């Protein structure tokens, strides 16, 4: 006897069909239960697995992915962000950023016009440990690769200058990169004055101005970095002011330096805190004022610490 589609469906449903469906659902439920039990008993170190990179040659990868190089670049870019983010936020004391540069290098090998990968990548790479790998040399290498791909992009020159200025403490080299950026098409007019100010003063005001420019960025992550750096600059100013107060009003002989003592003597209204609200640390013996290691502003950049 021939049956149409509906007839076949009805026949399956009446001849043990529901039993089969129930069996399938039960088997799936069993698989999920086993999975949950396994995950709780034998958790694999996902972070360890995330530290593997099978292909390291951009040229080889470009051939493997055929015409889908841009999509592969996106995948590596997402992986770079995840690698950086997971290492930065990990609770364990030692952080491994070893894969960050290879991942960014592969991303930009696959898509040489991936502007954000160069610019964000440079920020990630130059961030001092433990917030990042603390490799300004790799940040500059990545940006120089971007310059080779798009020599007319002033942003890459600006970013190299920034790394030279902020991480490598080399205002002369930074000014040179800013000047080179200012000569490129569509460069903003403030690049030249900043370069000149750097050469003339090498001061915190130039750094503040640069971070305020970055604060206008469309990228939330860059804005957050700029906000943190501006707070660090504010903390540097405050540390200097506090240091002056501490030197001017030393404690009575035989007593150590404590903020409570300064408050008790009505020299300070309260225990001074950095812009994040974390109290500044005060060395009881030497009276040195510093940003607390518990503060999210720690570690502080070394540039302009003492003017």
């Amino acid at each position, binding site marked *: 006897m021939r049956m149409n589609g509906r007839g076949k469906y009805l026949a399956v449903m009446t001849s043990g069909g529901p039993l089969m469906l129930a069996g399938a659902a039960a088997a799936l439920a069993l698989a999920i239960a086993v999975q949950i039990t396994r995950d709780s008993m034998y958790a694999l170190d996902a972070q360890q697995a995330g530290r593997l990179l099978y292909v390291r040659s951009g040229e080889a990868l470009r051939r493997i992915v055929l015409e*889908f190089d841009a999509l592969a670049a*996106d995948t590596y870019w*997402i992986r770079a962000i995840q690698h950086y983010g997971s290492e930065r936020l990990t609770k364990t004391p030692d952080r491994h950023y070893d894969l960050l540069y290879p991942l960014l290098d592969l991303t930009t090998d696959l898509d040489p*016009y991936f502007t954000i990968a160069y610019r964000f990548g440079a920020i990630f790479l130059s961030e001092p440990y433990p917030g990042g790998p603390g490799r300004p040399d790799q940040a500059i290498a990545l940006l120089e690769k971007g310059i080779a791909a798009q020599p007319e992009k002033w942003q890459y020159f600006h970013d190299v200058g920034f790394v030279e200025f902020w991480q490598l403490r080399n205002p002369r080299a930074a000014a040179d990169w800013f000047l080179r950026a200012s000569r490129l098409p569509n460069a903003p007019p403030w690049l030249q004055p900043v370069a000149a100010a750097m050469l003339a003063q090498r001061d915190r005001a130039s750094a503040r101005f640069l971070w305020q420019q970055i604060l206008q960025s*469309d*990228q939330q992550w860059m804005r957050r970095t700029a906000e943190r750096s501006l707070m660090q600059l504010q903390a540097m100013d405050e540390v200097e002011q506090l240091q002056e107060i501490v030197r001017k009003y030393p404690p009575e002989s035989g007593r150590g330096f404590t903020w409570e003592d300064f408050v008790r003597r009505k020299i300070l209204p309260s225990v001074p805190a950095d812009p994040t609200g974390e109290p500044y640390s005060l060395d009881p013996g030497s009276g040195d004022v510093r940003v607390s290691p518990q503060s999210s502003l720690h570690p502080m950049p070394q540039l302009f610490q003492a003017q």
Partner: protein
Amino acid sequence: MRAVSWIAISVFRESVRDRVPYNLVVFAVLLMASSYLLGQLTAGQDVKIIKDLGLAATAVFGLFIAVFIGIGLVSKEVERRSIYSLLAKPISRPQFIAGKYAGLVLTLAVNIAVMTCALYLVLAYMTWIGSPTLKSAWDAPGVDVALLKAIFLIFLELALITAVALFFSTFSTPLLAAALTFGIYVAGHFNADLRNFDRVVTPAPAVWLARGLYHVLPDFAAFDIKTQVVHGLPVPAGYIVSTAAYGMAYIAAVLLAATFIFSRRDFK
């Protein structure tokens, strides 16, 4: 001409019956899901990645349709023995090949048109919800007409792959035809290496052989302008026109070869 269009329409209808349009649903879901998820993962690069993903998915889905339907265009008729009744009708063998090819290209054209609309809809939505500061950082506008240049060349590339699949389908089994077509597709993307073989090898015969292969194999890499278009880089009109002319000439060559082989086949 009527016979060609009749065969073409029947190929198109058969692809609909084979549930080929289901891939459009997968495409739409893929784009919509990724537009939501990518915003959380990509540090503001979601529009760029959706463009990459949309164009790559168009190419991949098209590739699978072109290969897996293309390889069965002739061999399936032979296997089912329906070729006898078809050839008994007033249809010449060149008309049969042309009709089969046109039908699959029509299927691909409809697929790509729908995928393009879905991609533009998602991009329009992303542009609509994007802040002005975010948009100012994009290399190219969210809803960018230039994407059509890349989509046009993807379509031509798929039309060429279809011709290659149909060519193999005229004399080999579906499995072998699929393997050969994928082989040609992969080799066609290594063309730049063949052209520059003299940089890594010195013996003249090897260089000539590589150069010969560069010209004989289809230059699929030339059809790929996705990266340039997504980053808003200029692609000269002359490049697109010359690549399109190359593609059409190559398609004509492959279809003529397929017709030649098919005309010599004995179905007794």
